């Protein structure tokens, strides 16, 4: 009774894979964007800020549709990827990861940017006087001091990716074993006669996964803070 079925295991594995790649690929971009937003000034910065935050306020189905247009086989990016590298994004788990990454991106950037703004710039100046170049300072002083914020951003984005539904089903549809993540599977079950019990079981699993992620991030953050506090 408590044993997950093969279909459930498949959805869990797929969701974890999608969420992992969503976070792994967007993290460096999020750090770079957070840095640009926190540390630079240029005309049109407010537009970039708005663009990054757009997925928070636009209906997910719209994001999914835009991705469909851009990354479809004949879309400007999707077509190029297929012709050049033979990569297909649409209707694959990679597309699900992309949709999840776009939706979780604002949350990740927000957390990282906050932690970057909290870094004492006087420490960076001290590092410069000790012979470290800008990038060296960023890698050895700024980034380590941002760790708690980066962890928070990663966990938030991971949990958000696990739960992504609207953009995913619009962009990559509902293909068992390929794009049927936990939320899509739950939706499918609710559309099936007698699917309620299965939907409930998957919902409980979703809650447990999210809880594990949050607790893990809290424990990690404590360890990092304890390390800094000596």
């Amino acid at each position, binding site marked *: 009774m408590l044993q997950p079925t093969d279909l459930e295991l498949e959805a869990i594995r797929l969701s974890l894979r999608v969420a992992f790649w969503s976070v792994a690929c967007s993290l460096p971009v999020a750090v770079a964007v957070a840095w640009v937003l926190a540390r630079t000034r240029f005309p049109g910065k407010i537009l970039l800020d708005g663009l990054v935050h757009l997925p928070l306020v636009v209906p997910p189905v719209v994001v999914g549709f835009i991705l469909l247009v851009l990354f479809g086989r004949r879309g400007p990016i999707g077509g190029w990827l297929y012709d050049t590298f033979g990569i297909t994004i649409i209707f694959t788990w990679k597309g699900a990861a992309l949709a999840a990454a776009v939706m979780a991106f604002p949350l990740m950037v927000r957390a990282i940017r906050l932690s970057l703004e909290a870094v004492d710039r*006087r*420490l960076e*100046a*001290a*590092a*410069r*006087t*000790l*012979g*470290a*170049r800008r990038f*060296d300072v960023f890698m*050895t*002083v700024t980034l*380590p*001091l941002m*760790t708690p914020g980066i962890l928070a951003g990663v966990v938030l984005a991971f949990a958000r990716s696990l739960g992504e539904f609207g953009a995913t089903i619009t962009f990559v549809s509902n293909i068992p074993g390929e794009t049927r993540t936990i939320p899509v599977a739950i939706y499918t079950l609710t559309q099936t006669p007698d699917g309620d019990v299965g939907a409930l079981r998957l919902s409980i699993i979703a809650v447990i996964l999210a809880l594990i992620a949050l607790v893990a991030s809290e424990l990690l953050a404590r360890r990092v803070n304890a*390390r*800094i*506090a*000596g």
Partner: protein
Amino acid sequence: MLEVDAEQQLGAFRLDIHMRAPSRGVTALFGRSGAGKTSLVNMLAGLTRPTRGRIVIDDTVLFDSSGGTSIPPERRRLGYVFQEDRLFPHLSVRSNLLYGHRRAPARDRTTTVAEVVDLLGIGHLLDRRPARLSGGEKQRVAIGRALLAHPRLLLMDEPLASLDAARKEEILPFIERLRDRLRLPIVYVTHDLGEIIRLADTVVLMSEGSVAALGTVDDFLGRADLRNLTGRHEAGALLRASVESHDERFGLTHLAFDGGRLRTSRLDLPIGTNVRVNIRARDVSIALNAPADISILNVLPARITEVFAGDGTHTDLKLALGSTGHAAIWARLTARSVHDLRLEVGRNVFALIKAVAIDRQSLGGPQPDG
């Protein structure tokens, strides 16, 4: 030689610095808060850029707006000890110390980790995090970290300002050791005259964003016209002397200076040690005749060489001391006394100085170069 000709606009504040100072010994930047001392040091370090001008240290051009030269801070080889320790909280004391050391090319290395650790007495702290250190320990580690970047010159921005008196006494000897043992030129920002007396060779007096005066520490302390910038209570003069003997019975020390001898409370220094003694003007009294039956141990023949009327109630007299008249001190009297005793330039008098007025606080550290 440290040559600075630089202008910088910082909001409403304007920094306009023109100075030539020797790049050896300790050069103190002195002045009230807001005089631009820290801004000048940040400019030297390369953390801020002058609007225009030129900064040169020993033939190395660090900044030149006309030639478009601006060496970034990481290549200036100037150590910087900040007002706050600025230790990296995520690194151990050891990693903090090694941060600059690892990045310095081997050919530039002037000292070793072991020497610096020993010099600053921080061997027992190496495995701790900065959060676990006391204020004095943090500042010692910060000094060590700057030294191990193997700078050609060390900038220290009020390194003792955040410490209480006891911690200051704990750090000052270490700074004296840097000066005397490592022979490292130091630019030292302070608004504390006591630190200048202990440490400085050259004093740069700053006021409202520019250099008001620059000279040796002796000149600086002897100039009455700078009093309104240095603060009246600290007025005094430096006397260079050496420890001649100790009077163990009464707990006194005899100091010999050019043209005389000074008795002070017992100083714990070996005989022959060169010291500089700050004699505050308010601790000096004047008598027309050598007084008998008096508790004051130092009665020195002197000649008045300058009379400087202050704000009306006080008058400062410059006195040439002893048989040679080479040593000079100041006496601060009421205008009333000066009038009643008819004190004027050229008059021979006796300067009275209480032995207990001179203590460790008024002494500069041992001076290797005299």
